[in-house]
């Protein structure tokens, strides 16, 4: 589900934003190797100080699993001030009815393949729906997104192909960045919704978002889906034992960290089950 965090409600969402900056550090710094500034495991730049709108996806476990940053093109934004080489020396678009989308990412560590709720594809679509609907309500007609070719292919495959590009794709550090145009129209939104099978309202109120984020952290309830999950491998059994004997939050966090470290040893589905199962056991203990 989606929460939009801007300068007005940001004081309520310091912890959510902190998780978001950590996610951005993992994706843009560690995984994609973009030339971004990371401090204390968080990726932040000066555009984050200009009160942008952050479209943030929080899953049922209360984890921040996707995000995107929106700025007005009439004011300072990345294409005019940082990525201008993409535009081949041309002046940037400036229009009150065009917003810029940057720092679009999803958590590939917590999300799996396929089309289910905990998949990369689902959360990608959810963030796009959230941002387009938010823009449309604001009277905005188009958005220009700075993306890499991988994200471009994801968009093309998910009923959400950009209708045009500005300038030309340019190498930015280790990757290529491009400026894609997308309309914030009903047709596009319903296309994404059809593809992802999302018919419900994706927006959370401030209170719902806080409950989801805090609730899942405080009392992880054994969910029906994971209740019957039996740890099979030695490694999985080990994690469950560790979790059962954990007596403090630090120890539980240490187990989670180890699961993350070794996550290349199992499938995303197994990992999701693992991350939920030990919590269920811990709750019973």
């Amino acid at each position: 589900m989606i929460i939009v965090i801007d300068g007005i409600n940001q004081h309520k969402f310091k912890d959510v934003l902190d998780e978001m900056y950590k996610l951005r550090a993992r994706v843009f710094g560690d995984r994609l190797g973009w030339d971004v500034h990371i401090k204390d495991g968080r990726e932040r730049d000066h555009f984050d100080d200009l009160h942008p709108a952050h479209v943030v996806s929080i899953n049922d476990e209360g984890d921040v699993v996707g995000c995107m940053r929106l700025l007005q093109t009439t004011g300072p934004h990345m294409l005019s001030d940082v990525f201008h080489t993409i535009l081949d020396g041309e002046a940037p678009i400036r229009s009150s009815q065009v917003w810029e989308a940057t720092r679009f990412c999803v958590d590939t560590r917590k999300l799996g393949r396929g089309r289910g709720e905990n998949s990369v594809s689902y959360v990608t679509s959810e963030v796009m729906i959230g941002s387009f609907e938010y823009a449309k309500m604001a009277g905005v007609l188009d958005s220009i997104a700075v993306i890499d070719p991988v994200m471009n292919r994801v968009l093309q495959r998910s009923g959400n192909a950009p209708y045009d590009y500005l300038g030309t794709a340019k190498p930015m550090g280790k990757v290529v960045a491009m400026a894609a145009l997308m309309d914030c129209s009903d047709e596009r939104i319903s296309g994404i919704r059809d593809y992802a099978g999302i018919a419900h309202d994706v927006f959370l109120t401030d209170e719902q978002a806080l409950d989801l984020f805090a609730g899942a952290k405080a009392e992880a309830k054994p969910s029906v889906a994971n209740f019957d999950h039996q740890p099979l491998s030695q490694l999985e059994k080990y994690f469950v034992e560790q979790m059962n004997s954990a007596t403090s939050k630090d120890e539980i966090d240490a187990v989670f960290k180890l699961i993350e470290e070794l996550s290349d040893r199992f499938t995303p589905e197994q990992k999701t089950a693992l991350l939920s199962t030990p919590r269920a056991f811990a709750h019973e203990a």
Partner: protein
Amino acid sequence: MKLIDLAALDHEEKSTADIINSVCEELGFDYASYATMNPVKGDVQGYANYPDEWKIHYGSHGYHHFDPTIYQSVLSIAPVDWGRFNHDEKFNAVFRDAHDFGITSRGLTVPVRGPFGECGLLSVTRNCSDDEWEKLKRHVMGDLQMAAVQAHDTVMQSGVLAKALYLPALSTREKEILQWVAEGKSQQDIGDILSISHRTVEVHMRSGREKLGALTTPQAIGRAIGLGLIAPG
């Protein structure tokens, strides 16, 4: 920190007032106002078509020092419905009095950020039911965005320095498209000529119009010719 009524400065009165008044007449609002903060001095400059008694009351009580429609709205990129504000002391101080002057707390503010990081705010109010308000918002939000940028540019261009800084920087595509419009081509024709989608043509035209401070495409063509950016068709 002063509160400057732009209507009192005669060279400014016409255009900002026109925009504010036409927002009310054409889009169906009771009152409209425009405000911007001077980033150096912290003065609030603005124009409003509220009743004079309210404007005087507002200024004399120094509400422009803490009015949430100003200080909260600059924190958003999207138009802010006043329903979003906490009913704290500041809100109550302004809106309890506003109510006595017949001004409703049902309103919204469209923030415009300029290239120098400055912010302009177009606010509108209308006393009506919830349903009516939601319907109106959906219907006019795009027009309000355009009016807000128009009002902001008009005020920003009033200074000599600002005028120089605001010389429109049109991209080659924007000029090219305006040139083809001047030649009498339709949006679809231009898309075909330049091998781009008509939606892209539209985006460039919209951006070009706003940079030139024009409401309509013919007005933009006129200004672009006047500035020597394109040739007469």
